[in-house]
């Protein structure tokens, strides 16, 4: 995307026969005019009217690698996918855009003759483009440098006069190119020099110290200043310096108006600009009076027709305070007011809002006219890889439903709404590049067209990846035979019918030489918008075939028990479910699962009972049955439901909020031994913020207390692979997976106190897990068979180091502690 340089655009069309004095009759309004992108009726400031005008469009300048052509591209948001994977880049540009919009303000007067290109200005004046009455110069830092260099290269002429004499502008030679070594501002009213370069006047003068200018240029500058409305009277004087350069003094009298004590801000977006009627110099006084009256009337009507603006009361009061303190309304004050008002808008994300005009001057009430950036149109465009506009495959309602309604026509454009749209569309994972651009509407003044440009990802993709794995053989040394080739074959068909339906399949084996050993496959079909794409209800249908192989933590020994022969749980099955999303995080899922469970021992042969090494060295094979049927193979169908309520959010990078999850597996009596059961789990987690903190980037996160409770229970048939296991990093820390027991009912309680330290946090925790005496209700009592305690507590301290948690946990059963490193979060 384009880079937005914080450049200032100074467009200064100069009034035709601007004479410098006596211009002031009655300054009715200080008006602002949209400079370019849309050809607005040019305002001609006649001799008797002086107008102050600011830019009305969210313009910014895109400076692309040395090209200094003004480009009316507005702030834009975009995101791009680096690859057809869900890899996100940052949402960029927002800040830059705002900055640019703030920086770009225009002093503009409409009246023809386009000045000649400045001699020796070498690329200083970019072609204005568009209307006749404009020319513009861009003073990007780049250009300023260029000028500095020029000045240094002795391309200027000495004034040839004695040093230290004051020279009027018209006394300068028209043939010489003067070097201005210094620019001073002299306020005649105050009788003093304006100190500091921060003053708003400096922005208005296009001359820069050490620049080289001709007399004509200086005269143009003077005319510009004289006609911009800021000054009642302005003059340029040169003072010769011994080194042949000139010190330029701008002496001025600031424009002022009657003091005001009221302030009103109106939204003039989408309204016609007031047309200035020519005031005939030959009019009689009566006619003039009539004319002014009618103008006042028109203006009052304009105020009445305008819509209220978003500017809040506190800011308005602040401005009123500024007015009151000042006394007389001066041009500088108006500039400050404009800056304050625009700053509020831009801070709040109204990137397209601009103060366009101050009206009703010389009355008690100052009227600030704002164009807030009303959206007139929303355009969704698809682009191909080369950026050409194409007809997309995705159906538009799919995208529309992701857009916040604040982006629809009739609302004021806010950059946050744009970002939201960007995030939402990005979460569809359908596009490699997303841009949200506000663009000025050429047909309707002050209107904004929101353009959403999307690059679609490939619909179909297939991938093959291979890998080698080296398995330690005997003696822990890898042998040639232990080098295994593995691989994954996957295919994906996305966005079927343009409705974001997708089919995804993958087959993985870690040993291609003998793939039947462990072949994992997955086939998913996702069907969103089950209730129709226009229906706000967001339900997604999913169907998948899966298999998995996991080590069962039920068959794990307690402390001091020799290695327990592992039992692998192989599941193959089919699952369908419907997910209804209430919010981004809260959802309700319900569906059916059909699966076959096979339990295997180390040698991959089916085993029916757990086993335990006897002290005599033998193996007792009469442990708890691994399956419900007792044959090592179970088949069953059951209903599954999960409701998640999650209102957690990030406060300076730390999670705060509540999360409740209820999960239910309801057996239907279908399958081996007609399993009928109700297995339920309720997990409640609270992240309690202990201190109020200011939110914002780089602010420290608050200390947080995490409380966690988990209850699980099962009524009815409970095969051992479905028993709840106690112990492990997600159950009771400080113990191994399943080290505390396998039970029918489970209760886990945990508390963690997180204290922020620098960019991360340290934490203290205490956890307890108990089987509630239900271990004996699991067939074969695996807890007792493997000599486990059935309950346990732990406590400890830890620190978060990036993604890794390092913690020291004391196992309360044995009283010994150990250091653990874990990935991810406990809660």
């Amino acid at each position: 995307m384009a880079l937005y340089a914080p450049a200032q655009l100074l467009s200064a069309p100069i009034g035709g026969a601007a004479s410098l004095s006596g211009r002031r009759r009655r300054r009715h309004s200080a008006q602002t005019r949209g400079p370019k992108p849309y050809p607005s009726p040019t305002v001609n400031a006649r001799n008797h009217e002086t107008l102050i005008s600011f830019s009305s469009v969210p313009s910014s300048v895109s400076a692309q690698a040395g090209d200094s052509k003004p480009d009316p591209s507005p702030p834009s948001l975009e995101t791009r996918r680096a690859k057809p994977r869900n890899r996100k880049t940052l949402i960029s540009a927002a800040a830059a855009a705002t900055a640019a919009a703030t920086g770009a303000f225009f002093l503009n007067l409409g009246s023809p003759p386009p000045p000649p290109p400045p001699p020796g200005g070498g690329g200083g004046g970019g072609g204005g483009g568009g209307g006749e009455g404009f020319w513009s110069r861009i003073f990007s830092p780049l250009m300023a440098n260029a000028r500095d260099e020029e000045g240094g290269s002795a391309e200027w002429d000495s004034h040839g006069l004695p040093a230290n004499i004051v020279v009027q502008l018209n006394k300068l030679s028209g043939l010489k190119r003067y070097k201005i070594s210094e620019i001073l501002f002299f306020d005649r009213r105050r009788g003093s020099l304006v100190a500091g370069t921060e003053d708003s006047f400096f922005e208005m003068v296009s001359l820069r110290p050490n620049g080289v200018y001709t007399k004509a240029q200086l005269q143009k500058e003077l005319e510009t200043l004289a006609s911009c409305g800021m000054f009642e009277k302005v003059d340029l004087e040169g003072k010769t310096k011994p080194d042949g350069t000139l010190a330029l003094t701008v002496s001025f009298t600031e424009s002022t108006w009657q003091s005001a004590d009221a302030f009103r801000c109106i939204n003039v977006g989408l309204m016609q600009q007031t047309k200035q009627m020519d005031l005939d110099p030959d009019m009689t006084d009566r006619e003039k009076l009539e004319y002014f009256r009618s103008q006042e009337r028109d203006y009052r009507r304009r105020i009445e027709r305008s819509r209220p603006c978003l500017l809040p009361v506190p800011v308005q009061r602040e401005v009123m305070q500024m007015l009151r303190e000042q006394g007389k309304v001066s041009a500088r004050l108006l500039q400050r007011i404009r800056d304050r008002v625009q700053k509020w808008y831009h801070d709040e994300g109204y990137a397209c809002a601009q103060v366009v005009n101050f009206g009703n001057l010389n009355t008690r009430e100052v009227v600030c006219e704002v164009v807030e950036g009303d959206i007139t149109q929303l355009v969704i465009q698809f682009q191909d890889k080369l950026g050409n506009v194409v007809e997309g495959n995705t159906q538009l309602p799919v995208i529309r439903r992701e857009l916040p309604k604040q982006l629809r026509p009739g609302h004021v454009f806010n950059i946050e709404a744009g970002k939201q749209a960007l995030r939402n569309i990005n979460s569809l994972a359908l596009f490699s590049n997303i841009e949200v651009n506000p663009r000025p509407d050429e047909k309707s003044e002050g209107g904004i067209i929101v353009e959403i440009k999307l690059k679609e990802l490939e619909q179909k993709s297939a991938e093959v990846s291979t890998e080698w794995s080296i398995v330690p053989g005997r003696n822990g040394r890898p042998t040639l035979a232990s080098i295994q080739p593995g691989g994954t074959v996957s295919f994906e068909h996305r966005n079927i019918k343009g409705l974001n339906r997708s089919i995804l399949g993958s087959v993985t084996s870690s040993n291609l030489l003998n793939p039947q050993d462990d072949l994992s496959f997955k086939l998913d079909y996702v069907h969103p918008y089950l209730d129709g794409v226009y229906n706000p209800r967001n339900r997604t249908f999913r169907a998948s075939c899966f298999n998995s192989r996991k080590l069962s933590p039920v068959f794990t020994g307690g402390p001091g028990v020799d290695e327990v022969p592992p039992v692998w749980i192989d599941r193959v099955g089919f699952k369908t479910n419907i997910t209804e999303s209430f919010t981004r995080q809260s959802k309700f899922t319900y569906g059916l699962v059909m699966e076959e469970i096979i339990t295997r021992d180390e040698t991959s042969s089916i085993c029916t009972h757990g086993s335990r090494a006897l002290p005599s060295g033998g193996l007792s094979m009469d442990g708890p049955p691994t399956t419900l049927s007792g044959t090592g193979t179970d088949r069953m169908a059951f209903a599954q439901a999960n409701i998640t309520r999650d209102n957690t959010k990030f406060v300076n990078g730390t999670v705060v909020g509540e999360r409740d999850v209820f999960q239910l597996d309801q057996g239907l009596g279908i399958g081996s031994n007609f399993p009928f059961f109700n297995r339920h789990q309720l997990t409640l987690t609270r992240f309690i913020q202990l201190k109020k903190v200011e939110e914002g980037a780089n602010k420290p996160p608050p200390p947080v207390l995490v409380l966690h409770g988990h209850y699980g229970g099962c009524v009815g048939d409970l095969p051992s692979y479905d028993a709840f296991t106690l112990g492990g990093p997600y159950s009771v820390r400080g113990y191994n997976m399943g080290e505390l027991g396998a039970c029918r009912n489970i209760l886990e309680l945990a508390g963690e106190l997180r204290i922020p330290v620098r960019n991360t946090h340290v934490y203290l925790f205490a956890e307890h897990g108990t089987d509630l005496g239900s271990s004996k209700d699991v067939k074969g009592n695996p807890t007792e068979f493997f000599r486990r305690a059935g309950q346990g507590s732990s406590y400890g301290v830890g620190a978060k180091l990036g993604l890794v948690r390092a913690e020291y946990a004391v196992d309360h059963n044995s009283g010994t502690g150990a250091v653990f490193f874990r990935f991810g979060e406990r809660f």
Partner: protein
Amino acid sequence: MATQAVREWLGIQQFPVATQNKLHEYLGKLKQENVNTLTILVMGKGGVGKSSTVNSIIGERVAAVSAFQSEVLRPVICSRSRAEFTLNIIDTPGIVEGGYVNEQALEVIKRSLLDKTIDILLYVDRLDAYRVDTLDRQVIKAITDTFGKGIWQRGLIVLTHAQLSPPDGLSYEDFFAKRSEALLKYIRLGARIKKQEFQENSIPVVLVENSGRCKTDDNGEKVLPNGIAWLPNLVKTITDVIMNGGKSILVDQKLIDGPNPNDRGKFFIPLILAFQYFFVVKRIQGAIKRDIAKESKPLWELRDMGLANRQF
């Protein structure tokens, strides 16, 4: 199980006459109560003298006894009849192995007792063990879990090696009282019997001395240091326990398999499901709705809806 055919109880004749008379008297009492068969199950940790006690009661060397090694690997039943009265004594292997209760051994015992009725449980331990620990409790618990709590109503505690000189400063009686108190406490805990209930039906503690060097009194009866002839006393206590009531335990298939926890509460599943739907799922759904309503919207969104009231 190593079953032996019912044989005539010849061993009784080797007892001193006084003992014989007493035994006959007690057995006669039982007969009056229509008890013609008496099955005694002897259990305990390894090496406490279970087999020796069995031998002492029968008066024969029915079970092989060895000082340093467990001889009994499987339960052994020996039956003796005398005067239409049958006495079955089941000797079992110790159920402790490697510091843990050996469920496997317990399982074997349980299965071998299929279709037998147990009238009396003799829980054997040593008098000269000074301490009771969690292992005792686990053993008691394992027995209770196997046969049910009711077996303790027909239970006796037998303390072997009764002929000892107690440690300094304790009289024999005190030592015996202390030891039995400690053991009873662990039995109560292990069997999870309520304190009050336990006091009402206290489990009698009987002393036994199987050693051949046991002192004898004038009648030739083996007596303990407190002067009680222990064998008649044991039989008498057994008789008393039977007279006191309680139920004999019939070991059937159901008892062997244990209660099936998978069947428990199945009936209530529809009710549980309804409860979960209405009181858990619905509540969470309600909470989600409240979350949505309460969600703090960013100011720009509020302003757009005209809700900010121009305050911010």
